[in-house]
């Protein structure tokens, strides 16, 4: 595939508007995500962070009335091109959700399922092990792969969900507040894991935790809500830059905790 720009961005949006019915939830998002880096999206509640994130792998398609205006480019291709099957998009761009949501199946099945439906031909056992190792869960569960996934702790479940996403071999992993339901120790484990994974994957994470964004991400995008309740991105850059020297007053207020 040819790409027009000299640089191959992981995701690129141009004047993206996202609607729920008539309500414009997000407007004018122009954003370029650096590949194999961690980008965090922060902002006050309701400003459309989840909405933007879900638009990156077309999870909003399942919400009646939700639609976008503008383009979301993945490797130079608009994923909203009518010729593209959204299933294909989600195979390339995986997602980890706010609340751990393992399937009511065994640990093994949780990981193997996504690969199976996608026609994975090689050894599933190896794949399961590989993904569990990558998600730093292998040592804890290697003897109990047939146990129900719901019997794991919340932090383990969330790492299982990450392992499950890895098994489909995506290029990008979207994470929507993946640690909000976890205790601090489990949170740190996930952050380490993200760092580890960023060698191979592009990671985009929505978080309410400023320390987390500061610690764990390379780039930060700050969203806020306008008077018409539409969210928009008003600051984007290298994390250290955004945190220490924001160009926008609102960003500074938010980061230093005087807002939201």
């Amino acid at each position: 595939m040819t790409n027009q720009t000299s640089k191959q961005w992981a995701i690129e949006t141009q004047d993206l508007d996202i609607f729920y019915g008539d309500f414009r939830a997000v407007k004018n998002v122009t954003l370029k995500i650096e590949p194999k880096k961690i980008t965090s999206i922060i902002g006050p509640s309701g400003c459309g962070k989840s909405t933007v994130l879900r638009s990156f792998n077309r999870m909003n398609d399942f919400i009646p009335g939700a639609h976008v205006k503008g383009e979301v480019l993945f490797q130079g291709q608009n994923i909203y091109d009518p010729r593209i099957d959204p299933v294909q998009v989600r195979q390339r761009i995986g997602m980890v959700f706010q609340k751990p949501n393992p399937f009511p199946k065994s640990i093994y099945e949780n990981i193997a399922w996504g690969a199976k439906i996608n026609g994975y031909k090689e050894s599933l056992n190896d794949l399961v092990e590989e993904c569990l190792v990558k998600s730093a869960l292998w040592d804890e569960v290697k003897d109990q792969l047939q146990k129900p996934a719901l019997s794991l702790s919340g932090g383990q479940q969330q790492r299982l969900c990450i392992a499950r996403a890895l098994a489909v071999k995506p290029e990008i992993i979207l994470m929507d507040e993946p640690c909000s339901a976890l205790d601090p120790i489990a949170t740190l484990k996930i952050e380490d894991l993200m760092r580890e994974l960023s060698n191979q994957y592009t990671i985009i994470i929505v978080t309410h935790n400023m320390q987390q964004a500061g610690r764990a991400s390379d780039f930060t995008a700050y969203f806020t809500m306008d008077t018409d309740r539409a969210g928009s991105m008003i600051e984007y850059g290298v994390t250290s830059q955004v945190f220490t020297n924001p160009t926008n007053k609102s960003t500074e207020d938010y980061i230093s905790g005087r807002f939201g």
Partner: protein
Amino acid sequence: MQKSISISNGSPESLGIEHKRIFRNNKRWSENIIKMLLTLAGIVSIFTTIGIVYELGKESLLFFNLPGVTLRDFLTGTTWQPTIGKFGVLPLVTSTMITSLVAMFVAIPLGLGAAIFLSEYAADKTRKVLKPLLEILAGIPTVVYGYFALTFMTPILRGIFGQDNVEIYNMLSAGLVMGIMILPLISSMSEDALHAVPRSLRDAALGLGATKFETSIQIVFPAALSGIISAIILGISRAVGETMIVAIAAGSGPNFTFNPFKAAETMTGYIARISGGDLGYDTPDYNSIFAIGLLLFIVTLVLNMVSRAISRKYREVYE
């Protein structure tokens, strides 16, 4: 309120005690009576059960005490001919089983298909139209279904499979129509079960690049399985206990056959026919309906209890 005003005119020392005593005693008295009456109302339903069990049991005992009737012959005999003293219930049981089986062949695939469509695919507007229509189907009296089986389904079956092969009264027609009758029960209960599966599970599967179909069948459906099974079992119990459709369309006269094209009377059909006639209260035929009724009661009760036990399990998972 009235009381407290009148009492407040009394001496201040007695006020507290007096006030309390009169107030409380009066209230308690009427409250307790009311509570007792309500409890009695609740107990009526227990008497219903006791009545059913007692009467079925007592009259069945009379039946089994008749000369020549034994429990063993009753449960294993293949001829039901009271006039010659043959009381083998199997012909009635097999026809009940065949009509129910045919019904479930219709109701399970269609009911589950409809449940999945309504819960996973249909847009809100579509569902708002389709669901009430299926509910109408559930509210149609069974005698109307019986009429439909006899005047519509049977002629069609006879047209398709040949007048010589399909009898005017036949188990297939009754079973097919019974399946339609049970369809809304299975679809609405299964839809509830599918609906109770959290959205996050669907998101997880879709986020892994599964199609909607794969998500519905491989993730949502198994997660709702206990609710679905409980619906199916309840459907079977409905089919076994259904009377009017089989009484009208399946034929009158016990017949030990496994051929659904043939006429054969079911347990319920037999009870309806015998008690509908002007039989004396102490004939063997009359007594026999209680033994069959008892069998029917036990089978449906067990099915219902199993169904509820299973559905309770699925509620526990998600609540």
